[in-house]
């Protein structure tokens, strides 16, 4: 037994207690959120400053900042960002809605499952990006094709994780619901949806990153605005610093979105006590 109580003790309350060594990850570190990314930035800066990372391989952070400023003032960077965000959000929104509904339908009814689950599993094994030529033929090369692709790519993780979360709800709660005579709708509202929520939120984390992945690809097709468009142009002109600006922006998008999902998760899953807390 290890005694690990290093908290300060006041003279008035001689609090002598034995506290077990913690096996979980322990208490939250303030701003833990930023530590990893900042460390990464520090390594990058140090590498560039000492010349270990030559500009030909990776532009120095300060040059990226300069390029960012140039893009912002001269090339409507804000417009590009908004245009990309708009695309990703629309695609993601459709993907979440459709994936969530399909997961609930297929999770709750055997007929639904036999109709939906198979096609989704098939879809999973066909890379969405390989479908783009087909979508271009169907939807043209405009915004529809891009949104459909992003929706499809983010639908899959939402479906898989929500379905899995729903099916792993303990059967004893369904039994309880049967003994108190509640209807289907109430069963879904009080038991199925809250029970599947942890799965859904995990699906969200994957879906957010998938939607960005989709964004990168679709924006290379005939886009007139967007970060992908900016990167494609920069590639043609050999401006590595602008490419890095684009990459950093994608990274920031992804990181913020993921953090937002986790934050929401912590609030709506307040009923759970896990190693997370």
């Amino acid at each position, binding site marked *: 037994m290890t005694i690990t109580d290093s908290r300060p003790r006041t003279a008035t309350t001689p609090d002598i207690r034995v506290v077990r060594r913690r096996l979980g990850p322990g208490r939250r570190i303030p701003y833990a959120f930023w530590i990893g990314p900042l460390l990464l930035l520090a390594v990058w800066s140090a590498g560039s400053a000492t010349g270990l990372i030559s500009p030909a391989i990776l532009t120095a952070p300060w040059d990226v900042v300069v390029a960012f400023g140039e893009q912002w003032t001269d090339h409507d960077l804000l417009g590009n960002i908004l245009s990309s965000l708009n695309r990703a959000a629309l695609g993601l929104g459709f993907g979440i809605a459709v994936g969530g509904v399909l997961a609930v339908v297929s999770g709750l009814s055997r007929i639904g499952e036999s109709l939906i689950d198979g096609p989704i599993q098939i879809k999973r094994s066909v890379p969405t990006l390989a479908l783009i030529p087909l979508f271009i033929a169907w939807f043209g090369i405009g915004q529809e094709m891009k949104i459909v692709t992003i929706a499809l790519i983010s639908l899959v993780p939402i479906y898989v994780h929500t379905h899995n979360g729903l099916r792993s709800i303990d059967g004893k709660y369904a039994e309880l619901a049967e003994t108190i005579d509640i209807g289907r709708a109430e069963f879904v509202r*009080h038991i199925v949806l*809250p029970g599947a929520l942890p799965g859904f939120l995990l699906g969200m984390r994957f879906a957010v990153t998938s939607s960005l992945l989709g964004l990168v690809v679709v924006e290379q097709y005939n886009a007139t605005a967007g970060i992908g468009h900016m990167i494609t142009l920069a590639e043609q002109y050999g401006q590595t610093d602008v490419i890095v600006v684009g990459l950093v922006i994608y990274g920031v998008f992804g990181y913020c979105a993921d953090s937002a999902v986790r934050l929401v998760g912590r609030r709506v899953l307040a009923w759970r006590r896990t190693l997370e807390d």
Partner: protein
Amino acid sequence: MAPDTRGLIAAPAVRVRDLHRSFSADGGVLNGLDLDIAGGEFVALIGRSGTGKSTLLRALAGLDRDVAGHGEIEVPANVSVVFQDSRLLPWRRILDNVVLGLRGPDAAERGRQALAEVGLEGRERAWPFELSGGEQQRASLARSLVREPQLLLADEPFGALDALTRIRMHALLRKLCEAHKPAVLLVTHDVDEAIVLADRVIVLDAGVVHADVRTDRPRAELRSFLLKKLGVREELGVR
């Protein structure tokens, strides 16, 4: 689904005739069981582990869809079950758990009253994990009582509680049953619990009612009778 003739009778009472249930081809768990419970009567069901107490209870609760068997079961329309685990939905606050599925504008108020009755006023907004085991079981009792059942089925509801909490829960359950007058079928492992709580004790063995006694006899005599029926020799010193 076991092809029972399952009728809903108006008078709050249980009538079971020739009930058979089996999980495998080579032997039944319930073999032609007969049972009657009058309205407002408190019956305790004891029996060795694996004799089919839970199986009977689940049959009465209508939760044994996938079990083979047949027989005749009549139960009141309004049946409520208290499980061994409190079975509170972890993602709903205590009050929401208690009023789950209740209709009517006064549902929340009735839920609050039921919680007060089991001594949990002020804990309406707590999450289930914030309650102790006994408090959780009390909340699940409140969830059953708020539905004003004509028949309360309880499968070892105090099995997981410590001795002291059990005694408190016994008093509470007796009080609540006297106030609300449901017919009760309580499954328990504990002969003393059965004697203290019930009007009648039934011993289940080999899938039929092996003994059926009222608890108005002297306690020591009743206890040794029931232990004998359970196949426990008293000098072995079971408590």
